[in-house]
């Protein structure tokens, strides 16, 4: 099998946008963000597109059926690349030593056997549900994070180095104004030409006028920064975009709330076990989390990162040493604000009768409860706003308590 990552054309920005990731953030500070003496909470949502194999990332080594189902790619507590035991039952993929360290320091947590309300297996619908926050697909105008922002009192506009990214993740799209950042490596049109074009658009094409104005304004502030793309592989790019995003978010007037997406988790064939394709990607995710920690500096203390994916993968490996589209998976939390050091799970078991439709890890926790718990802990959003606006018709998915310290 040819390693597809090595064969990507890593030309300037494209690698970041399509090969790896995209980043966007809220354009305003929440009003309370700099309240004297209080917390200054930050929230970062990381979407893993393609459906992460939760059973390979946080493996239930204590479940007697795990090793048989995951077969050739199952993790084990021994061998050349032993999984990292998180408790007596669950073990973390060995490609994630940074997350393991955060976990030991009580600043990282795992929620296992989790899923959105979506129960079919289309990536695109699954991502719509994950990011829109609606109970079903087809509602793609706005994302739950954006609606959560709308519920916050809007403070002053952030002004530090931001440029609007061409691919704002759906989770952050909506009425609340957002911005993004992506490194640029192209000589820029001069101001005069740009202003003339804005003027033409104002008269003839208001939508383009607004888009270009935003692009120009934010591009300018970011220039002179050292956030140029440096090439390298996908893992390096995941780290790089996290480093850039952390730098923006660490600033006093930087955004407090951001979302980014990493692609490439659809491991149908030759997924690999302790080493291999998934290990490679998890290493990139682990590096990105570490970059956030170091880049946010003192702000890390008030930060929570939520890592989520559209659904899980089959409990049993398929015929090509990979896994097909499934249901239950994991969510990860990391950050100084996270009350960590735990795997939170109502474990359903992997016996055939306990699998969802006889093939997938059965979800026992609603992902919306996890996210609501974090939103409530970080920003104090009420049960009602969370159940009606942020995640419409989700009263049954109660916010999980105690996720944030």
């Amino acid at each position: 099998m040819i390693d597809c990552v090595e064969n990507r054309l890593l030309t300037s920005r494209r690698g970041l946008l399509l090969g790896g990731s995209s980043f966007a953030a809220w354009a305003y500070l929440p009003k309370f963000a700099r309240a004297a003496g209080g917390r200054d909470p930050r929230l970062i949502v990381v979407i893993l597109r393609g459906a992460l194999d939760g059973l390979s990332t946080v493996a239930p080594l204590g479940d007697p059926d795990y090793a048989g189902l995951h077969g050739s790619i199952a993790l084990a507590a021994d061998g050349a690349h032993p999984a990292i035991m998180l408790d007596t039952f669950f073990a973390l993929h060995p490609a994630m030593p940074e997350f393991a360290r955060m976990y030991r320091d009580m600043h990282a947590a795992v929620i296992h056997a989790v899923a959105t309300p979506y129960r079919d297996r289309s990536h695109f619908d699954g991502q719509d549900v994950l990011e829109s926050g609606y109970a079903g697909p087809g509602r793609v105008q706005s994302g739950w994070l954006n609606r959560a922002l709308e519920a916050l009192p809007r403070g002053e506009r952030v002004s530090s180095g931001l440029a609007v990214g061409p691919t704002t993740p759906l989770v952050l799209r909506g009425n609340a104004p957002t911005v993004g950042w992506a490194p640029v490596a192209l000589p820029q049109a001069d101001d005069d030409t740009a202003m003339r074009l804005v003027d033409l658009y104002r008269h003839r094409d208001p939508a383009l006028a607004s888009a270009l104005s935003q692009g120009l304004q934010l591009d300018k502030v970011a220039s002179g920064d050292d956030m140029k793309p440096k090439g390298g592989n996908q893992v390096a790019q995941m780290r790089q975009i996290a480093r850039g995003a952390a730098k923006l978010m660490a600033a006093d007037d930087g955004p407090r709330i951001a979302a980014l997406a990493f692609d490439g988790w659809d491991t149908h064939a030759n997924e690999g076990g302790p080493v291999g394709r998934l290990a490679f990607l998890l290493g990139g995710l682990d590096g990105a989390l570490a970059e956030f920690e170091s880049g946010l500096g003192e702000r890390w203390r008030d930060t929570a990162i939520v890592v989520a994916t559209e659904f899980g993968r089959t409990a049993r490996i398929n015929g090509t040493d990979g896994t097909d589209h499934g249901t239950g998976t994991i969510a990860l939390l990391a950050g100084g604000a996270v009350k960590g050091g735990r795997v939170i799970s109502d474990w359903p078991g992997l016996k055939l009768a306990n699998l969802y439709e006889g093939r997938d890890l059965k979800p026992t926790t609603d992902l919306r409860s996890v996210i609501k718990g974090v939103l409530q802990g970080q920003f104090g959003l009420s049960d009602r706003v969370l159940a009606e606006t942020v995640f419409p018709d989700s009263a049954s998915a109660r916010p999980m308590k105690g996720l944030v310290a």
Partner: protein
Amino acid sequence: MARDSQAALVALNRFGFGARGGASGDLINAASDPRGFVKAELARPNGVLLEAPGLQSTPQLGQAVFAYQDQVKQAREAAKAAAPAEGAQQAPADQKPGLRRNLSLNAAATEIAGQMAETKPADNAAKPDAMQPGAAAPPAAKPAPQPLNVIQKTFRAEALARLQRATLVECGFTERLVVFWSNHFCISASKGELARIWAGAFEREAIRPHVLGRFADMLKAVEQHPAMLFFLDNQQSLGPDSRAGQNRKRGLNENLAREIMELHTLGVGGGYTQDDVTSLARIITGWTFAGRQGQLGTPGSFVFNANAHQPGPQMLLGKTYGPTGLAQGEAALADIARHPSTANFIAAKFVRHFVADDPPPALVARLRDVFVKTDGDLKAMAVALVDSDEAWKAPLTKMRSPYDFVIASGRLLARVPEDPGGYLSNLNLLGQPLWSPAGPNGFPDTSAAWAAPEGIKLRLDIAAQMGARLGNNIDPLDLLEFAAADAASIETRKTIERAESRQQALALLLMSPEMQRR
């Protein structure tokens, strides 16, 4: 006259790739008979095929990859055997004597490679080509260019042939249809070496012959093409009860089966279940391509491997398909192609591409009926679209995709690309790398996707580059006549007239709503 120019704009921009500059007279020709102008291309059935000297077939290209990989492996082993210091300085594999013979490189690719090797960064800036990428990076930072391998050379030759075709054709309706279907049935070159070398051949062999033919034929050609089988992993999928499945303890991979139904035919919500996905996956086990050893057939060609095929009848969408081997899957695909959900899904996607992000339901229904009544005759559907009132009355609100933008700019400037490099890097920058979408659902087809702030800003930067390089030699107001004539708005005309330089005027023209919307 104004109305005719407006209709000409619809003919050239909505249906085609924009008016060509120079002496083409495209806008005038289109204005005199807009519908006829668009349909004229459909009457030239061979105009859809793409044959250029040196472009090779899928098996030939597959064999070139196998040979290349063998050479790389041998070189690595030889290096290992020799002293480590020498190994580090070995020549790239495809420069080794004897290899070129095996790879039978095509003339175009060789020529491009030659140009690449000789082009120095400093020359790039001086070269008056609109889309040279050289200026995008500081020359000093550029390392000496590595010689291209056969995969890169082929990709560039295929890209060049497609870019030249799109730049040269009269209206571009047929080419737009090719791009539409190629994106509908997309593969991604980033999957691996085989996908990269096959990306162009896949379009030439599986898409183009059927763009004015039948949907069912295109579907079969696509799903049996080695590039698709590789892209969606079917070449590795084994029937669990097949002889190979039993021997090798490997089995089913449902990736291709799912995307056939979700993305290629029925559409999500089109009435299939997980059981249908698994069933179709079983039905198409054994659909693969012959490997380098050639035990199953000519290396790199589609083969049905009966040893890997799941034996027995299969139930799919309520119908039982008997154990007829290859014919089992072909019968299933033929039925799926005729399924009412497929007609709906295809008609809506087609209208969304050509008319509006929110496709008018009446037009969708009409095209769906044509699709059903003609048993998926894609030419009939295209004609019905051109004959509709909606396609001519709807305002030009669609945003040109990055591909549309670079092609339309090249056409207006009457510059036939001689090297694909600048085009490819601009497409990468703008988020639409050629033949390399991020997922099997292809590139997005809505204005929202392409009119985002950063994307527009980047387009402006690229347009400014083109203006700086080419503005000297052109009259922007003449170009505006070619592009839109009296369908151009007063504001656009004034903006161009008042520009401080020809360079700036050209950048503004390329970015004007007349050039960005279709």
